[in-house]
């Protein structure tokens, strides 16, 4: 696994933009709503995430933290 993301589901509003931009199809919308009633995004957690941070860059709630294996650092 080169990358992974952590979604703050209480900040997430389930807009689906991260789902749209993830080149690896790593994100889906969850079926369980958060406290506010939104259906947040969910990281699939498979091995394909590249840590490219595209999901995080488009997230209007800045709800996504992106991690990456340290050998290949990406710029923040």
């Amino acid at each position, binding site marked *: 696994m080169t990358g992974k993301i952590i979604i703050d589901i209480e900040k997430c509003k389930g807009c689906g933009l991260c789902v749209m931009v993830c080149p690896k199809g790593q994100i889906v919308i969850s079926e369980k709503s958060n406290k506010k*009633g939104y259906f947040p995004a969910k990281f699939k957690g498979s091995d394909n995430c590249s840590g490219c941070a595209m999901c995080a860059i488009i997230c209007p709630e800045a709800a996504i933290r992106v991690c990456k294996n340290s050998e290949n650092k990406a710029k923040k």
Partner: protein
Amino acid sequence: MQNISELYEEIIIAGFGGQGIMLAGKLLAQTAMKAKKEITYMPSYGAEVRGGTANCMVVTAEREIASPLVTHPNSLIIMNKASMEKFAPRLKDNGLLIYNSSLIDYEPQVSKTIKVLAIPVDQLAIELGNPKSANMIIVGAYLQMRGIISPDTAVDCLTQTIAKRHHKMLEVNKKAIYCGAKFAKEQPI
């Protein structure tokens, strides 16, 4: 059923943004009007609504209504948890609480004098084939429980309350109202 000339029914309907709270309230108001009651309907409005909770207040009475604002409702229709927390404590003794048990998975802590109906409206709506009609189901249940106005009157008001462009939904909404009413009727209270 209480003495009709004494009727002064103050309702709060509350829930989440997209749950059709306002429409439910308007339908109740329209229904009461059709039933020749005095009525007021007061929505929460403006930026408050954005992303947060939505609620509205309906008062129906046999005499002139003083305030359209309801601080302590007789009847409370609750569609999500946040609203339960906010409004349940304000309910009057001997009042009525109807809530969406599809989203609220605990027993509300209210006074013993209060009549409570848990109804899984989201689930019922999905079963009906239209997840958006949960609001209509709960209206049906309310009318049935409260027993002041017949659910039939609400059905009669659908054409007025629902915008023309959505009139293809009339039938399913009608079904939803009756579904709610039926659910309520079958409760063992």
